[in-house]
């Protein structure tokens, strides 16, 4: 293996669900050693939501739970027990970074909050990430990214103006917050190198996600305008949207902005008579008659497969692309293949399945993704022996006492 960027960094990952695990994962894929602490007594929610292998539920059968935990060593410890907390502290002594994504106060109950950890490891870097941040009137409300997506404004802004909001797909803020957190965390590592000081990071995932609507927030604070849904319209392009194509649920996205793009666009369609109509002569006219324009474009696109429309457009310099489904389209996308976006790893229970690579390629220190998300407690032996230095007898005792957990109560 080539040199890895974070090969000297150890991470004690007490976080769960999305944002915390994804943050530690990013560093793990660049060489950090990450121990992920879970428990059968308090299952990560993502072990309880599909897709399950063959539709058969099981805590080690869902790819959702696996996909944010590549390259990590997974252990199962009951942190509610005194000896479990001792294991937790031993891990902290080993670690450079501690990850927390529980409801504020949970880590404190286990003596694993920043103030306590700083006493035993003064230069520890720790992050706590949750929906609302560590303090404030809503801080104690636990929640998932669907709440973050709604509270950060994203959900309201997807859909059609004359209808109720369709909402953004999934737990959208869970897929914004980690990237801000990783950037800040690495900056903290550099800061520690310069100063020897540890840092505590308090992230509200909602606050991070609001950054993605910054111009609209300013439009309200400055102009008092409340942002509304616009369907597929945008001020600077027409036609602009997704258009029906040959086949079931097949669509192509097209954006025509400049006059040059419009001319090319018309040429590709064979310059039908309607394109010469005064209603579409100028950009302002096209904007004014946009709905009619979109219908006419749709009448043309629906006679072709989306791939064909997209390549005709792109070959002439008009921005367009297939509305790709998350099945055949993405997995067969030649550009994603070229960039080796999907990495297939052997998971202990699920078998071979797909993982995402990062969106960036580093020319000298490419990421190295080698280990599927761990089954619950998969690496207990390695971590307790080789990392924490427990003897076989001690491990046996921890098992007997239930400190190392083995069975989930799913009743």
């Amino acid at each position: 293996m080539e040199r890895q960027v974070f090969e000297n960094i150890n991470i004690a990952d007490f976080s769960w669900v999305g944002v915390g695990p994804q943050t530690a994962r990013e560093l793990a894929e660049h060489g950090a050693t990450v121990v992920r602490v879970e428990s059968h007594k308090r299952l990560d929610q993502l072990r309880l939501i599909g897709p399950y292998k063959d539709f058969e539920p099981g805590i080690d059968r869902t790819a959702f739970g696996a996909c944010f935990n590549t390259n990590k060593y997974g252990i199962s410890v009951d942190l509610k027990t005194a000896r479990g907390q001792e294991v937790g502290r031993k891990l902290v002594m080993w670690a450079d970074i501690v990850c927390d994504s529980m409801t504020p106060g949970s880590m404190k109950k286990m003596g694993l909050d920043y103030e306590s950890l700083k006493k035993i490891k003064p230069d520890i870097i720790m992050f706590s990430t949750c929906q609302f941040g560590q303090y404030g009137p809503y801080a104690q409300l636990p929640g998932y990214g669907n709440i973050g997506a709604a509270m950060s404004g994203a959900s309201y802004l997807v859909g059609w103006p004359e209808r109720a909001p369709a909402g953004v797909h999934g737990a959208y803020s869970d897929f914004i917050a980690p990237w801000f957190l990783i950037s800040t965390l690495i900056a903290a590592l550099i800061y520690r190198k310069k100063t020897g000081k540890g840092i505590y990071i308090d992230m509200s995932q909602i606050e991070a996600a609001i950054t993605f609507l910054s111009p609209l927030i300013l439009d309200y604070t400055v102009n008092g305008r409340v942002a509304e849904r616009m369907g597929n319209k945008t001020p600077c392009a027409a036609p602009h949207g997704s258009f029906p194509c040959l086949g079931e649920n097949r669509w192509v996205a097209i954006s025509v902005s400049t006059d040059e793009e419009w001319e090319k666009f018309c040429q590709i369609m064979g310059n039908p008579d309607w394109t010469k109509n005064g209603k579409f002569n100028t950009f302002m006219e096209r904007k004014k008659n946009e709905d009619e324009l979109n219908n006419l474009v749709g009448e043309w696109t629906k006679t072709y497969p989306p791939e064909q429309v997209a390549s005709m457009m792109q070959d002439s310099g008009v921005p367009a692309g297939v509305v790709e489904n998350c099945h055949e389209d993405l997995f067969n996308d030649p550009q994603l293949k070229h960039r080796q976006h999907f990495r297939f790893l052997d998971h202990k229970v699920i078998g071979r399945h797909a993982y995402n690579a990062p969106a960036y390629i580093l020319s000298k220190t490419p990421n190295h993704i080698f280990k599927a998300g761990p089954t619950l407690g998969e690496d207990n032996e390695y971590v307790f022996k080789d990392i924490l230095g427990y003897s076989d007898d001690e491990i046996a005792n921890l098992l007997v006492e239930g400190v190392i957990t083995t069975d989930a109560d799913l009743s």
Partner: protein
Amino acid sequence: METPTNTETLLGGYRVLDLSEFGSLLCGKVLGDLGADVIKIEPPGGSPTRNMGPFYRDTPHPEKSLFWFAFNTSKRGITLDVEKADGKELFIRLVKTADIIVESFHPGYMKNLGVGYPDLCRVKPDIIMTSITPFGQTGPFSHYKGADIVGWAMGGIMGLSGDNDRPPVQQSHPQSYYHAGVQGAVGTMVALYHREMSGEGQHVDVSMQQSVVLTLMYAIEYGDLLGITLPRPRPSGATISPRGEPHGPLVGQRRWECKDGYITWIHLLAGGSQPGMVRSTKELVKWMEEEDMAGDLPQYDWSQFDTATVHQELVDHQKELFKNFFLTKTKRELMDRAASRGILLGAFQTTKDIVECPHLAAREFFTEVDHPELGDTIAYPGAWAKTSEAPWKISRRAPLIGEHNKEIYEKELGISKDQLAILKNRGVI
């Protein structure tokens, strides 16, 4: 390479030259708000991003673009035409002072000007160059044009977005380039840490399409494991969850109308083996009971609510009760009670709701930024994370056109006033 000694901010002392535009500008903002010295380089006359609305007091003007304001905080600004020989010369002199270059030109543009990554390495061997493009620097689509909606489509999220009886939709405030911008920041930071440890710089090649793919949650896993393309939600706000036989798909409400808007509460996550979910639903039902709207819900054992086997009839029956209850409450009423009792719901906040949100106010999320030339102070979205040391900060508002030309060309590079006048005359700055 020397490690900067400035410790007031996390990235104090690192210099970034930002040649990017539009949503990719977020990359430099992330580095700047964390303390890096970011110099935004614009073409003479000003960046095209300055034409992006909305505008301050709805006055279209290159110095009043709120889009420009939002993503150029904590940056200084100079003008420079890198395409001209003299401009390129100045750029190379600046590269020698920099740690990081961020650019979003189409692949090959920098190389054709003689300032591609290998060229810059010869000038500054440990330079980090971050290139943000729609599809990446190489590959079959690398020459494709990438509007934001194209990234949304080819990244897979558009097919999952919108009502299932209409075409797939974008986010009304386009997002793809922001995803690429923030991924650019992540890649840059990984590269910067590597440089700190090894002294070696590198090229960071970001793809907007891939950045969007990373938002898909479990949709890819459904495709990969089960061969299922997840459907878009119904116009009613219900989503369809795939299940194996014999039960078949389950339809569950996710978006609910309330008195003054909409909320999210995922009915299909109302119980099961998660104690937190059961507690949340019990609290909600208790509230409904207080108002005589709970029907038979109090008798239901939420720990037995197993979405793998639950019947659609039961879900539909419960849905009516929840639906009628939510309609009697405002977003704020629902949020306040949810927060105090741990009910897992959230309001579909508008931008107005966000600015007026009591929680964000208590956390002092919004940060005031002075715009002296407008005679105004504007509230901006604040820190994405609060740190115990060297806090996140907007150190200055977005630069005016060529605002720091004098500071950087004259004072730093030692170019005389006369020379500057000539360069201006020739359209270089």
